[in-house]
């Protein structure tokens, strides 16, 4: 009997570990979580100990993501029983209402949380998500700005705001949000690269030069960032081809573009080795780089 239950536990551990890893890495692989989690809950609930509650929460959120209201409901009931009156469970109930597109009811749920606890950031952010889901971007932006005045260190919120501004084509404000993120996360190559993309999109010589600098910075932080590499190539090429720059600036940018071309070619040669699959992409890149070199000189 002991041997049997021990081998059972041994079998359980990999699945539990998977769920924990996904929780810690904040992965949104909802289909997988539902698959693994549903089996764990249905077959092995009694063996999970106190972990079951966080697993119920994780599986519930994933179930909502996959339109599995049946599973979400089951998880919610178990959590309600175990933690009556909990704000955290109340928020989960609100998320379920959101998934069912019952936005008014969800909003009321979050309002009641905020009445008891006005500093509950999760409830405030859910309310903003509702505005986003309803396509009310201007209001979502306004609320998020208000939220950030109070909670100025919330990275996730700054990033969400930058995305909202990008979708509204408000690149100046998107850049501001990314500047905040770069200040507090100076080693994050993704923020540098996104900032560079926004500057490039804004256009004009000054913005192009800034974009080139930040693509280069992103590459310094992560030399495998292909977007940054291509971005450096394109921004430098455009600057070099501009009639407004003097010979020195032109020469420097031709050099940057040439360096980037080299790196791109090397990366694609390496990638092309051994796989017939991406021969098309490799050839396309080669030709593109050749043709752009001609327009630059």
């Amino acid at each position, binding site marked *: 009997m002991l041997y049997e239950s021990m081998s059972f536990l041994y079998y359980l551990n990999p699945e539990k570990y998977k769920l924990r890893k996904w929780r810690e890495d904040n992965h949104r692989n909802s289909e997988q979580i539902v698959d693994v989690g549903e089996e764990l809950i249905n077959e092995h609930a009694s063996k999970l100990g106190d972990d079951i509650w966080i697993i119920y929460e994780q599986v519930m959120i994933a179930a909502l993501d996959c339109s599995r209201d049946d599973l979400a409901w089951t998880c919610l009931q178990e959590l309600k029983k175990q933690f009556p009156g909990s704000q955290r469970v109340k928020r989960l109930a609100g998320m379920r209402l959101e998934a069912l597109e019952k936005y008014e009811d969800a909003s009321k749920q979050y309002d009641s949380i905020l009445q008891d606890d006005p500093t509950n950031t999760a409830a405030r952010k859910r309310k903003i998500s509702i505005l986003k889901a309803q396509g009310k971007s201007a209001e979502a932006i306004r609320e998020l700005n208000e939220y950030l005045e109070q909670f100025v260190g919330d990275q996730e919120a700054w990033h969400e705001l930058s995305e909202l501004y990008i979708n509204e084509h408000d690149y100046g404000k998107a850049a501001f949000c990314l500047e905040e993120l770069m200040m507090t996360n100076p080693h994050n190559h993704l923020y540098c690269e996104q900032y560079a993309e926004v500057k490039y999109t804004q256009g004009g010589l000054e913005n192009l030069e800034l974009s080139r600098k930040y693509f280069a910075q992103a590459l310094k932080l992560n030399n495998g960032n*292909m977007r940054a590499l*291509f971005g450096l190539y394109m921004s430098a090429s455009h600057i070099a081809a501009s009639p407004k720059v003097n010979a020195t600036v032109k020469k420097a940018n031709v050099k940057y573009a040439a360096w980037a071309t080299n790196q791109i070619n090397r990366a694609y040669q390496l990638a092309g080795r051994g796989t017939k699959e991406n021969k098309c992409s490799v050839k396309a890149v080669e030709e593109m780089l050749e043709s752009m070199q001609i327009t630059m000189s």
Partner: protein
Amino acid sequence: MSWRRWLAMGEVELSCLAYVKMYLHACLFPRCSVNGLLLSSSPAGGAVCVTDCVPLLHTHLPLAPITQLALTQVDVWCAQTQQRIVGYYQANACVSDSSPTPCALKIADKIAEQCNNAVLLMIDGGKMSPDYRVPPIVMYERKDTRWTLKDKHTIMLRQWEETRDIASQLLDSGDHSLLVDFDSHLDDITRDWTNQKLNAKIAELASPANGNV
């Protein structure tokens, strides 16, 4: 009966391959807006036959650098493979709104500069359930300088039910994860944005051996 003969000016034919890949692209990134280019291997003039598509982005659609890069690379690939870019598709993250965004109009305008009967195709996320009776797409064409809704009757999808079933099959089997868009290619450049592997799978499912013509 040759379908070509029945396609008059202003009509658009959408191939199984193009539709299935667009649909799978939207399914692969259900929480994002996605976009891509529509290609034709038929010569210019007369009806537009969309024979293939290239899925492009699922992040930051309005930003310029990657879009420009993708357009250039697809241009080059088209020249190498005797295809032309004849249109643009987009599926919005917010399913309640399937109207073209400013960025969709901008890119479609650019395409129309080179292809005068270019099409702009929006995927209607709200109508994408597998048993839906008609294709969940809305098409626009350029009249003067504005993009106007195209008459549904000028859009041809050969063997819609078979096409729809192929898309469902690939979704169920999880093969939709084989699809590579340009964004994914930049995350890992060993992945092929021309999707040769997926194309072969779709061709297999659509072949006469499977009871389709």
